[in-house]
C-alpha cells in the first residue's frame, strides 16, 4: 500500500515504550504513525497534519489527555472532530464516562493489547473488516 493510502494515526503518550509498542502494532496493521508526548505537542502536530485517528493517553506532563480532548473538541472545522481513542489506566465506569464527556469516541483500559489497538483503530478509521 502506498504511504499516501494509509490511514494516519497520531499516538499521544508520554511513555516512550508505550509509543513504541503501539507503533509496532499500528504499522503492522497498515497504519502510518506519528507521535506526540503530550497534549501540547499533539496540537503542534495537528497544525501540520490531519491524522485520521488520535490515540490519546490521559496522564501526560504539561497537558493531560482530557484537557487536550476538551480543547480539541472546541476547535472549529474538521480537526476538532478527529476520532479519538482514549487509553487510560483507569478502569472505572466514571472514568469512561468522563472520557466520553471530554469527547472520546472510544476508551481502552491500559495495558492495551496490540491486536485490540489495531482492531479498534481500524474500526474508528472506517476500515472494513
Amino acid at each position: 500500500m502506498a504511504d499516501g493510502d494509509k490511514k494516519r494515526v497520531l499516538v499521544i503518550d508520554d511513555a516512550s515504550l508505550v509509543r513504541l509498542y503501539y507503533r509496532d502494532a499500528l504499522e503492522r496493521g497498515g497504519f502510518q504513525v506519528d507521535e506526540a508526548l503530550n497534549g501540547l505537542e499533539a496540537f503542534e502536530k495537528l497544525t501540520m497534519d490531519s491524522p485520521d485517528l488520535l490515540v490519546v493517553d490521559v496522564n501526560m506532563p504539561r497537558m493531560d489527555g482530557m484537557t487536550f480532548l476538551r480543547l480539541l473538541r472546541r476547535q472549529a472545522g474538521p480537526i476538532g472532530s478527529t476520532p479519538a481513542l482514549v487509553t487510560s489506566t483507569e478502569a472505572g465506569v466514571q472514568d469512561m464516562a468522563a472520557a466520553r464527556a471530554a469527547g472520546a469516541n472510544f476508551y481502552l483500559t491500559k495495558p492495551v493489547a496490540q491486536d485490540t489497538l489495531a482492531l479498534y483503530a481500524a474500526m474508528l478509521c472506517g476500515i472494513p473488516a
Partner: protein
Amino acid sequence: MGGDDGKVLAALTSGTNDQRWAAARAAGDIPGGVQALGRALSSEADPRLREAFFTSLMRARSLEAVDAVLPHLRSDDANLRTGALDALRGMAETAAPRLPILLSDQDADVRLLACEILRDLPSAEATPLLCRLLEREGQVNVCASAVEVLAEIGGPEALPALAACAARFPNEPFLVFSIKAASARIGGQPPEHG
C-alpha cells in the same frame, strides 16, 4: 501576618482571573502561602491559573510545598494529577523523603505517578527504589511505569529485578515487551529466570 499578605492569600480564591493570577505568583513567598496555594488548587478551575499555583509551589522547593501538592496526586481530575506530578518532578530532591511511602501507597495510581518522580532523581537514588517496587508490585501498570523510568535511568544492577518482574507476569505482553526493551537499553540481556 501583615495586612497585605492577608490580602494576597484571600485573593487566591476570590477576585478576577488577573487578581487570582497575581496572588498565585506572589503567595509562594509569604508565610502560610504554600499551604494556602495547596488548598486553593482544590477550588481553582482555570488551567492557566492552576499552572501558576503549581509553579509557585514548585519554586518554594520545601517539604511543606511537597506536602501541599501531594493530595492533588490523588485527584480524579487528570489536569490536577498531572499538574501535581509536574510540580513534584520539578522539586524531586525535596520530595525524596516522601517517595518510599508514595511507592507503597494503597492507591495504584499514586504508586504509578510516584515512579515518574524518580526519573528526576540521581540514578543511584532512584534505581534501588524502582527495583524494590518491581519485586513486589502487583499492578501491571505500576510495574510498566517503573520499567519506563528504568529504561532511561537504570544500570546493570536493575537487570535482575526486571527479569524477575517479567517472570511474574508472563501473560502481560506489554510489560514483557517493555522489560525486554528496557533491559536492552540498559545494555544487557536479562538473565534467564527458570
